[in-house]
């Protein structure tokens, strides 16, 4: 019996389990998946928790319920990947040898990477919303917060869901309006990039949003430290910005097991071939989702498109055929802009987000790069699609793995 081992049962790992469970010959292949955590979080939903739009029950299910019974599921921590021996050692000493390994260990926030960030103010008046703990602590804070200097801050790229900080500040603006305290809140968006929108086309079309919402902008800000005694954030060129409430997106990194195994770059992301998803280190190791070092976005939709290509390539690899070069960096993301509206972007490695309709030319029903109510409904419907279709590795009707140029103003 040959062995296919998947590390991580998050979005990408779970999709791969379900795809391969249907494809692999069960008389020849045994599939095993390892993940130390019980809970599967619907991470896009974390964005809505601070504003009490979603509660814990919207975003929490058990990982196990998405793993088919015929697959071996091990709920334990991983110590190291011995890639030269085709073996994985678990924390309790168990050895798992493999013929093919799929790394789907994801990415996580690492607040310790910025001096002072994980200090006394952490989860008191300094929050993340990329963890369930951060999102719920922020929700509780916002319930009683009466206004002041409110900062949303991006530490450095790459991050999971690159549009989330922007969505967050726009939803916060709407939240404060609804609460009747917007005029008591001074809102500032701080980014190390050249602006909220870095692509000329997006900036042309969407540049008005932050001005309209009276959100201040501090760009080219590379954070050196956070001072949680005096409540300010400081850059390397000694710009200081004071806050009363700081919401930050800390440095994102791959899992520590990648570092322990000598498989990652300096952020513990695994060097991966950008069109095939094979690791650069070993032919029988493949990488998917947030764990890769690819310039594609770290997002569930990307993992979905990658899973379709990777399934093909696992079958090619098993049959000793040439791998397909089909992953094109395709991403498809709804962006909430507050007051029941959202816009939608669809892009890949080579084509920037543009205007148009999606998924059908002219018909839509969604509009690209345009704020509409129906886009917002699409974003909310995505929760159902995620739990019921995406994780099960089912195709999404009308949405192709490779980005389509139809219906777009290119």
């Amino acid at each position, binding site marked *: 019996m040959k062995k296919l081992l998947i590390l991580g049962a998050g979005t990408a790992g779970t999709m791969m389990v379900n795809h391969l469970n249907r494809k692999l010959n069960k008389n020849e292949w045994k599939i095993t998946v390892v993940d130390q955590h019980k809970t599967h979080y619907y991470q896009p939903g974390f964005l809505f928790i601070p504003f009490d739009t979603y509660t814990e029950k919207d975003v929490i299910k058990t990982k196990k319920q998405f793993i088919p019974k015929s697959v071996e599921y091990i709920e334990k921590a991983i110590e190291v990947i011995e890639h030269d021996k085709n073996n994985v050692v678990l924390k309790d000493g168990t050895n798992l040898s493999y013929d093919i390994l799929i790394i789907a260990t994801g990415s996580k926030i690492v607040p310790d*990477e910025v001096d002072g960030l994980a200090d006394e103010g952490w989860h008191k008046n300094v929050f993340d919303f990329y963890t369930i703990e951060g999102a719920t602590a922020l929700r509780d804070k916002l319930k009683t917060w009466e206004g002041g200097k409110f900062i949303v801050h991006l530490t*450095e*790229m790459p991050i999971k869901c*690159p*549009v989330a900080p*922007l969505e967050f500040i726009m939803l916060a603006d709407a939240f404060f309006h609804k609460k009747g305290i917007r005029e008591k809140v001074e809102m500032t968006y701080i980014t*190390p*990039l*050249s602006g909220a*929108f*870095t*692509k*000329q086309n*997006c900036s042309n079309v*969407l540049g008005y949003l932050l001005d309209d919402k009276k959100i201040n902008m501090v*760009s*080219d800000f*590379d954070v*050196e430290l956070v001072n949680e005694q005096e409540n300010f954030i400081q850059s*390397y*060129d000694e710009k200081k910005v004071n806050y009363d409430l700081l919401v930050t997106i800390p*440095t994102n990194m791959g899992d520590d097991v990648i570092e322990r195994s000598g498989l990652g770059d*300096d*952020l513990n992301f695994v060097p991966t071939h*950008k069109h095939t998803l094979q690791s650069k280190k070993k032919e029988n190791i493949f990488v998917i989702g947030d764990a890769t*070092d690819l*310039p594609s*976005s770290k997002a569930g939709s990307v993992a979905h498109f990658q899973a379709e290509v990777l399934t093909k390539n696992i079958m090619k690899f098993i049959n000793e055929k040439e791998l397909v070069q089909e992953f094109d960096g395709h*991403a498809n*993301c709804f*962006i909430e802009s507050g007051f029941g509206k959202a816009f939608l*972007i669809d*892009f890949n490695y080579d084509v920037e*987000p543009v205007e148009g309709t999606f998924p059908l030319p002219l018909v839509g029903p969604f509009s690209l790069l345009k704020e509409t109510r129906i886009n917002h409904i699409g974003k909310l419907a995505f929760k159902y699609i995620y739990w019921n279709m995406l994780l099960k590795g089912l195709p999404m009707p009308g949405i192709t793995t490779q980005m389509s140029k139809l219906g777009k103003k290119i």
Partner: protein
Amino acid sequence: MATKEIAGSMVDVNEEGFLTDFGQWNEAIAEVIAAEEGIEEMSDRHWEVIKHLQDYYKENGALPSIRKMKKSGVVDTKELYTLFPGGPLKKSSRIAGLKKPESCI
């Protein structure tokens, strides 16, 4: 997108003055762009940073972050700011004939 003459060469640039074809880059062009960015004279240290950025981009298809620059051992963050005041990554990548650091939108 527009075509512009810099240091006697015709080059393609985007709305923000970044070269869109690295094949058109040369050191004379870099010096003119550096002057536009307020850098009067390109020292050896400036060139080392530019060279590092170009090598990194060639290998990775993306620009390094400030953190990666720090870890590269080529230049520390304070010096990077002294060499390219204001927005060091944006300025140095423009001088190097590369894209600016971007997000997906």
